[in-house]
């Protein structure tokens, strides 16, 4: 109770600092995530259509990419430019692409082949099948990839405070370094709330993006589908 009270006191006395950091944090996350969603979905679709070897290569590289520390990516970006917004975005982007790419790829390859055959039989073109059958069926997995990426990005954007890009990391790290737990929480609580908000937002978007008529089919496809 005392700690939460102290946290509120710190926040009230340093509103400009914390609110500014929050805005920077959201800017960083939205930019990195939008770029990663665009690239991840596009690459995922391409890979799913190219074939098995490409699939193996992409999933391997994707999984390998997840093991590279984000701070290392930011460090490399720093040597190419100066401190600030973009090195942090590059690091977060590299973090966010693999889960989106992998989920898009898995979502598309997991679509029941019978459904695809049926669509073809009904006269859909290959592009039509992708846009109107496969992608809608893959939406739940694609969005869960974006959701995972979003939560990781929101939490990891803390590192931006070390490369001059600001964000709530400034507050968290400052509290951590000085052992002031009220300062630490004044940064950590908004990050937790942001992560929750991202979780809810993408769960909602997923519902909206899944066509109503497909919700039943989707469930069946996932239950009976071949996860190759």
């Amino acid at each position, binding site marked *: 109770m005392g700690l939460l009270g102290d946290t509120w006191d710190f926040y009230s006395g*340093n509103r400009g600092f914390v609110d500014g950091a929050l805005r920077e944090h959201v800017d960083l996350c939205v930019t990195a995530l939008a770029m990663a969603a665009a690239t991840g979905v596009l690459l995922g679709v391409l890979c799913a259509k190219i074939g098995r070897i490409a699939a193996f290569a992409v999933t391997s590289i994707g999984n390998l990419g997840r093991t590279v520390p984000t701070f290392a990516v930011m460090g490399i970006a720093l040597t190419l430019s100066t*401190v*600030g917004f973009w090195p942090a975005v590059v690091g977060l982007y590299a973090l966010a692409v693999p889960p989106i790419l992998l989920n898009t790829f898995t979502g598309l390859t997991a679509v029941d082949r019978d459904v695809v055959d049926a669509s073809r039989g009904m006269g859909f073109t290959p592009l039509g099948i992708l846009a109107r059958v496969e992608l809608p069926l893959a939406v739940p997995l694609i969005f869960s990839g974006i959701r995972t990426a979003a939560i990781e990005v929101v939490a990891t954007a803390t590192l931006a405070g*070390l*490369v*001059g890009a600001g964000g709530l*990391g*400034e507050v968290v*790290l400052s509290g951590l370094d*000085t052992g002031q737990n009220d300062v630490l929480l004044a940064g950590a609580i908004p990050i937790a709330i942001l992560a929750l908000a991202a979780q809810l937002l993408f769960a909602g978007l997923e519902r909206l993006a899944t066509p109503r008529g497909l919700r039943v089919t989707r469930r069946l496809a996932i239950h009976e589908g071949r996860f190759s």
Partner: protein
Amino acid sequence: VKRRVRLIGAGLLAVLALVLVAAGCGSSSSSDSGSSTSGGSASVDGTSVTVADKGFTESQIIAQLYAQALEGVGYKATVKSLGSSDIADAAVRKGDIDLYPEYTGTAYNVILKKTDVPSPAAEYAAIKKAYAGRGLTTLTPSPYSNDNRVACTQEAVDKYGLKTLSDLGTASPNLVYSANPEHLTRADGLPLLKSAYGVHFKDVKSVALNLRYKPIEDGQAQCVYAFGTDPQIAKDKLVVLKDDLGKFQGLAYENFPVINSTFFQAQPPVFQQTIDKVDAALTQDAVQKLNASVDLDKEDPSDVAKSFLDQNGLG
């Protein structure tokens, strides 16, 4: 299938063994250079001593100086790297390590949790007394002090007529500042600059401790939170502003050895003599150069320490 399982098991064991070996090598490195000249007293011959550093350049150099100077008089020294003052303090009290270099300001403020700002002499006297009660022996601090400064580019200094921190207060709305996150909310950091000197920077770049000078070098910031022995002050031709009110420079951050008392009492006088000689040689200028050799010229801390001891006749 069984064979495959066994193969995987063997593979995992091999990886585990490799990791353990690597960890073992990484955590402690024996510094065995310079022991050939061991003409010291026979009573210390081969006594082992474990020195710790706190994981950053200046601390690593000084730990190496202590270790190699002690080897010069016949000790068998090992250097360990620990993460922070709290960890090093716990380790030296427990006897896991025998000594480590600490700053008077950190001991006073972080370890002893005192918030006032006494004179450097009173600061060390208080530390010596409090540490004795904690099973620790301290020796005379070095002449240099790695205390708080603000340094600005020559260009900004000329443009805004900056001489003192109060001048900085007037000019700060036009200036961008570079500092590590810790400085932003630490009571003796930016909050003090705001309240005592009226400093309100246009923008503050929060960067990792060792990246503080990058915004300056890239032209993104004009002023930086500096330590007295930062080698970049000289390299980037920065001007250190005078603390006209005497509030910011605050505590002295002189280097002194923290030694486990039980260990210290078992040593002959040559131990203290050796450590005292090293600390006496650590002037502001000398430490700035030592840091420059490691941070800017990318030399190894143990090599830098060795040549410093040789040059000063301490090897």
